Each structure stands twice: as structure tokens, then as C-alpha cells.
């Protein structure tokens, strides 16, 4: 079956007066890999369950492959939406063998074809020798592979992933992340994947939609979400090394500004902003980990003191205190700077952005 398109329009859902989805609209092109990124309670699981037909939205519309499946007068049950899903808890049926689990959605296929399809998928996810085992005889990673094979074996155009890696240890998570990303594209389906892990989202997505408090905050390719967060929430949620109070001094170039840190004397930091800022405005400076480096040169950056250092294989990550109690984390250096040693911290303009303080106060 060919990949399906997906269109969500003004979707709203409340649970006992709590709005969990607030006028969410998004679209996914055929064959695209969309990641819904958000913290716990942001509404991403509810959105996915509405797409699957497990939950009914209070308002709004969902179209899968240009067919209306949910709307004011329409509700198509999950079994007729032609999609499949990988569940967070795997949801493997304990009384069915691996082969039976994977072949579940192919009940109407002729037996030889079904067998071929199941064998093919088991082979692809690397669990062919386990076909006759039962779920409780498998490790967590193997169970997740069965869930992946089951979802991909179903002859559907849209596959939903509900935080499928959250129950796995770091090693297996990395390995399975790669397999999900590659296999989904190989099979040629459209994917909607939810996660609260920004690393996972950036690594897998063609498009990212960031959700917060049930609202779609930002959407776009991973690069634009990372480089041009629209507000403080997105900036923080997608990974920061520094979050510091600043005063905007003057514009410099398109959406570029020089800002002053209150504890850094005359030192100026260059950053960019998604909106226009007036000189003299109190704001906050957000810096990605990639945009911070340590220097021993006295004329560079701002003064700081190393509070902690951790060996991370390819080098060292430092926690540096600047000013009286501002902390900068994940400061990478190939050389080790000992605790309590004095260092200079430099910011790269491309990875630094400044947002007005009122927005910055909207911490989540």
C-alpha cells in the first residue's frame, strides 16, 4: 500500500474541563516522518490516539489519505482507518507467538503470502529465529522489534509510534532508533512519531511539531526548529547550555543584536532573535551547547569558574558558573579543566538567540 497523507484541522479535546488539545492543525505529506515533540502532558499522546481512533476529539477534523475519518458528523473506527501503531508498552498479545503477533493484521491474506510477509519483516528487524517464541520469552528490545514488525507488516499507509523507545536502555534505544528510521522509510509509509526526547526527534524527523499545553507551538524541519526556536519554551525544550539574563544593546545585521550580560562588564555577546527587539529591553540569552566553548585567553568571552567536570569519551563536559549564580552546562572541551579553576566562556552567535524577558519568563 502506498504512503498516506495526513491532515489535521482545528483538533480540540478536553478531559473533564482540562483542555488537552487546543485547536491543533498540521499536515503530513506522503512518506514523510513527522515527530510530535513535547513534555509530559503536552497532549501529544492524546493527539496520536485521536489519529488512531482510540480517542474521539471534541471538535476538528482528521483526514487520512484525503478521506475524512473524524469530523463533526463522522467517526471512523480504528480498524477501518488503515493504519498501524507501535505502542509505548509494546502491547504484544501474550497468548500469541511472535509470528502470530506480527501476522495479526494480515488475517485476510492467503496463508502463503501472509507467511512470506511475516518472514520478511521478522528478517528485516532481525528476530527471525524467535518467530515461534512468546512475548514473555523475549527481552525488552526484542519485544519492541516484534511491535515494530507488527506495525510495518500491516499493509497500511500510516504508522503511528507512541514513544516506542522510552522503556529501553540507552544502547538499545540508539540501535532501535536507527532501525525505526531506516525501516519506516524503506517500507515507504508515512510515520507520526511522538517523543519527549529532543535528540530522538532531531535524529529521526523530516518534520517536527512541538506541542505545549495542548497547543502546537512550532513546526518545521528539525534544522529550523533547532536554529530558530520561536519562543523560550521551544528553545529550552530543544536543549540549551545557557539561559542568562541580558539587556539588548543594539541591532546588528538582520535580526542580529548585541546584548550585555549584567555580570560581564563591557563584554558584548552577539545573538539573533526571531522578533524585533528594542534597545534597552531586558531579555534572556539562550545558547545551544554547540555554541559554547572554553578559552584560556583573557581577552575572550566572560569569566567563569568550573563547578563540575565529566569525562564523556571524546572529551569533557563542564559545568561553569558565571556571575553570582548563573550556571552554564554541557560546555565541551577536549581538554580537562579542573573544578574551581577559572576559565573564559565564549558564545557562538549562530547558536545564541535572544528573546524578550516576558516570553522568557514563560518557563515550562
Amino acid at each position, binding site marked *: 500500500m502506498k504512503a498516506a497523507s495526513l491532515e489535521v484541522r482545528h483538533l480540540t479535546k478536553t478531559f473533564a474541563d482540562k483542555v488537552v488539545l487546543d485547536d491543533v492543525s498540521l499536515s503530513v505529506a506522503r512518506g514523510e516522518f513527522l515527530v510530535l515533540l513535547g513534555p509530559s502532558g503536552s497532549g501529544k499522546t492524546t493527539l496520536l490516539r485521536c489519529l*488512531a*481512533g*482510540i480517542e*474521539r476529539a*471534541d471538535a476538528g477534523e482528521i483526514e487520512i489519505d484525503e478521506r475524512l475519518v473524524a469530523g*463533526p*458528523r*463522522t*467517526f*471512523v*473506527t*480504528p*480498524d*477501518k*482507518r488503515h*493504519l*498501524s*501503531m507501535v*505502542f*509505548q*508498552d*509494546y*502491547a*504484544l*498479545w*501474550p*497468548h*500469541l*507467538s511472535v509470528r*502470530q503477533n506480527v501476522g*495479526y*493484521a494480515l*488475517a485476510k491474506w492467503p496463508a502463503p503470502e501472509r507467511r512470506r510477509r511475516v518472514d520478511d519483516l521478522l528478517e528485516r528487524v532481525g528476530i527471525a529465529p524467535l518467530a515461534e517464541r*512468546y512475548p*514473555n520469552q523475549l527481552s525488552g528490545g526484542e519485544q519492541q522489534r516484534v511491535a515494530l514488525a*507488527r*506495525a510495518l507488516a*500491516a499493509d497500511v499507509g500510516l504508522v*503511528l509510534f507512541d514513544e516506542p523507545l522510552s522503556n529501553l536502555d540507552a544502547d538499545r534505544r540508539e540501535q532501535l532508533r536507527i532501525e525505526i528510521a531506516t525501516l519506516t522509510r524503506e517500507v515507504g509509509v508515512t510515520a507520526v512519531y511522538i517523543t519527549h526526547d529532543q535528540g530522538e526527534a532531531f535524529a529521526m524527523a523530516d518534520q517536527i511539531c512541538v506541542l505545549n499545553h495542548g497547543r502546537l507551538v512550532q513546526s518545521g524541519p528539525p534544522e529550523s526548529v533547532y536554529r530558530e526556536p520561536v519562543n523560550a519554551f521551544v528553545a529550552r525544550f530543544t536543549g540549551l547550555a545557557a539561559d542568562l539574563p541580558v539587556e539588548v544593546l543594539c541591532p546588528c545585521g538582520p535580526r542580529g543584536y548585541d546584548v550585555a550580560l549584567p555580570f560581564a562588564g563591557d563584554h558584548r555577546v552577539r545573538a539573533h532573535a526571531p522578533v524585533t527587539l528594542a534597545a534597552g529591553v531586558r531579555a534572556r540569552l539562550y545558547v545551544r551547547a554547540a555554541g559554547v566553548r572554553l578559552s584560556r585567553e583573557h581577552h575572550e568571552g566572560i569569566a567563569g569558574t568550573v563547578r563540575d567536570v565529566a569525562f564523556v569519551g571524546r572529551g569533557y563536559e563542564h559545568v561553569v558558573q558565571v556571575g553570582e549564580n548563573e550556571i552554564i552546562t554541557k560546555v565541551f572541551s577536549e581538554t580537562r579543566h579542573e573544578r574551581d579553576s577559572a576559565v573564559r566562556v565564549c558564545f557562538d552567535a549562530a547558536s545564541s538567540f535572544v528573546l524578550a524577558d516576558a516570553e522568557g519568563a514563560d518557563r515550562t
Partner: protein
Amino acid sequence: MTTLQIGHSPNRRAPALSGSVLWIILGLLIVAPVGSFLLLATSPRLFGQGPQYFTLRFFSQALSGVTGQGIVNSLWVSLVVATLAVAMATTLAWLVQRTNVYGRRLWPILMWLLFLIPTWMMTLSWVDVLQPYGSAAALGVSTSWLYGEFLGPFGIITVLSIASLPFAYFVVSAGLLGLGSEFEDAARIHGAGRAATLRTVVPMIAPALLSAFAISFAETMSDFGVPFTLAYHSHFPMATYTLFASISTYPANFSVAAVIALVLILTTVPPIVLQSVVTRRRSYATLSGRAREVRRREFSTPARLAVSAAVGLVFVIGLGVPVGGAVLGSFLRNLGIYAAGPVRFSSVYYHQVFAPSIVGKGFAAPLMLSNQLGLIAASATVALALVFARRLMLRSSHWSQRLTDVMLMGSVAVPGVVLGVGYVFFYNQGFLTTHVIDLYKTMPLLVLALVATALPGQTRFFSGPVAQIQPSLTEASRVHGAARWRAWRTTSLPLMSRVMLWGWLLTFAKTISELPISQILYPPSQEPLSVTIQAYLGNFQLGTGTAMTVVGLVEIFVVIAAALGLYRVVTPRGWQRIGWSGVGA
């Protein structure tokens, strides 16, 4: 495409509507019959049973004389029995789960067998053993010194304690199972001695002990088998029998019966509701979320042998003696009757069992009838209990669900005799028999009452397993293309099949041997098995009654064995891998 009109959101109305329907079923089955009957205690005029709209006269009547003595006797006997049962059950559960005692797989099976034997059968079997010219005498053991004691509080407490043992054992076992030995280890490591460790750990299973006590107490208070047989013959009145006698004698005094019923409910419902609240608040599940390795106490070989023998002795006394005694007694030529000459064995009682006798029919008709009742009641109860259990597990705060929950919790503890008398009273009301439906003294009414008495317990029996089925398992089925029926058939049914089978078998067995409701509600000339046996015993045909009891017991065990065997043969291998609690994702 499935198209729904969403004027009022149908997904919100559906639970409320189905909840109301279920509540109506519960109302007609339990609440209305019991409630209207209880109203008679103070307002006999409401139902044309007397001139008063409000009176407390029947309280003073019921709480004095024989009926008052019956209530007092039931209360103190229940307290003693519950204490003994919890003490024995805790010891046994600890030995089975925390030591290397021999036969750790056998003892729980024997506990289930004990659970299946009704108290009236147990009483009859003990009488067979102990009476002059009984089974023990046939083996040359003199029991005359014990028989007199048995016909009194000692025998009553003994039989009821043995009968309560399984209830207490299952609850305490569940509590102990969830209590990993790491709690004891942690206490010891942090400097606690044996006594201090015990003081630390015992409160952790306090909910289980409290639950076991509540269940044993409520079961004993509401038991009818022992009061109807042993206590009656011992001239030791107990509340359930005096209640029965109040409506069986002429003229029937429903108001006095209602006061006794009220006392029974007031003493049985609160402990059960309290137990439910306590176990919910301090759920075992929070303790047993992970399977922990349990460290067993290793007895030395002599100690192990001695302890195992002691456990075996409990089951010999509780199960072996009465069952063996009944079987032996059923083959004695003159059971309970003086006969010159040596003891003779004969199968004459078994011939009489299947030949017409005092009730004008042979044994085949009552046996067949009880099987039919068991079949219908068990099937209807399992179906309804599944629906109720699913309903209880919904995470909704709708009033109908909360009310259903409270009703079911309370109904578990409504004694069968109260329900039976409630049915006699409610379904004989003129407004029902004239304008709605006349079920009085009919087989459908008996079936309804049997379902009603089994439903609350079965619902709670299913609630745990239903709650353990992750919703995602059914959701996964729907998302992967299964329509509602296929999703249920391929996911919920296999996961629940073993529990459903056991639920069905338990209800079937309990219905076949059920006494109070059958005794009160059987239609004329259509006596079920238990009533027929009581009629033979009442007519001093002890041998025939005993042989019938043995045949009934054998039949129950054969059906259970056959059903379990059939389950192994016909169900797919995967179904059999699912245990009682292995239904998580």
C-alpha cells in the same frame, strides 16, 4: 465507514446509559428484594404486613427470646471462628510460602477442594464419622465421648472454622506473596532483632490480616448450612436459622425476620466494605508490582518432616476425615443404626439413591435439575459479572458507577438466606404478580436468586484479572484492523479464558450445593439436590442422604476435572500460557 451523529457526544452518554441499565439489573436482582424486605422491620404497613407505618416493636421481639439468643450466638461464634481461621490461615500461608515445608503445591489445591465443600455437607460428613454406629465406630474407633461435644458450640465452631479457613488463607496468601523478603532483610541489616523485624513487617500485611478476619467473620455470620443442620439439632439457635424459621412457621413473621436480616447485614456488610476500602487504599499490588525472589526459611530435615506432618494433619482433619468418613459411611449397611453382629458393607444406599423414595422421585431428577440450575446460573453469572467487572474498572466518576461499586461491595456480604426471604417477599407482592410478572414459586425466580447470590462475588473475582488486561492490548487489536468482536475474541477472551472457566466452575459447584435459597425458593415438586438430601436426612434416612452427598461431590469434582481437561485439549497453546496474573502486556 461508520458515521455517527454527534449532537450530544455519544461517547459520553454511552457509559452513563449502560451504567444505568446495569444498575437497574442490580436493583431488580438484589437491591429491591432485600431493601423492601428490610423496610418491614420498621414499616410493615408499607407492604400490608401490619397496621404500623413506623414501629420498633419488632426490634424488641427479635432481640429477645430465641431469636435474640440466635443473634448473640451468631456474633460470638463468628468472632471466635474468624480469630481461629485467621490464626490457622496465617500459619499455613507462612509455612507454604516462606518455608521449605513439603507439599507446597499440594496444600493450595486441597484448600480449593475445602473451599468447594459446603458447610452442610461438611456437617453431615462429620456426623457420619462421629455418631454412634458411624464410620469411626465401623473402624473400631470409639467417638462417643466426642459426639456429644460435637453437637454443640464445639462442633459448630470446628466446622465453621474449617469452612472459613480457605477464605482467610487466600487473602493472607495474597498479602504474603506481595511482601518480598527484602523488607525483612532490610530490617535485619539495619540492626533489628527478630522481634523488631516482626514488628516492622507485620503491619505491612495488616490489611491482609484485617481482610481475612472481615471475610471469615462475614462468611460465618451469613452461613446457613451449619445453623440449619448442626446448630438446629444441637438446640443452639443461630441468626440465619431463626430468620428462616420466622418465615417458615405459620403465621410467618416477616417483620421479625427483617430485623434479624437487618442485624445480619449490619454485621456483615461493614466489615466487607471496610476490607474493600482498606485493600484498595493499601493495595497488595503496590507491594507486588515486581516479582521478588522470596527467601524461604530452611527447616532441618526432622523439623521439616514434623512441620509438614502438622500441615497434613490440618487437611486430614479438615478434609480427609469428613470426606473419607462420608464415603465410608455411605457403604455401611446400617449407618447410625444399632445392628447385632459384625459391621457389614453394602452398596444398598447407592441403589436407593437412584430409586424413588420419600420425595416420590429418584435422585436422578434433583441431580439433573441442580445441574441445569448450575449450568444456567453459572453461565448467566459469568456473563453479567464480566460486564459488571469491566464497568467497575472504567476510570469514570459517574454516579452510576460509584453506586454500582458500593452496591456490589455490599451485596457480596448479603447472606443467601436474606436474599432468599427477600425474594419470597418482594416477588410475591400484589403489584408485581398482578400487573408486571408473576414469578412467585417458579423456577425462573429460583434461577434469578441463584444468579443474584453469585453475581457480587463473581464480579469482584473478575475485577482483578479484568484490571490487569492493559487497555493497549485491545487498542492494538482495533488499530491493527480488528473489528470490535474480533478484538474481543482474539485478545480479551484468550486472556480471560482461564479466569472465566474457574469463575464458571466455582459458580456451578456452589449452585449445585447451594442450600438456603434453594430451600426457600424451590417450586413445588421440583426439589434441587441439596433440598432433596435435606429431606432424606430429615426423614432419618442418613445412609441414603450420605450416598447422595457423595454422588453430588463426586459429580462436582468430575465436572471440574473434565472442564479443566477439556480446556487443555481444545484451547490453543498460547491461551494456556496465560496464568491468573499473567495478563499484562
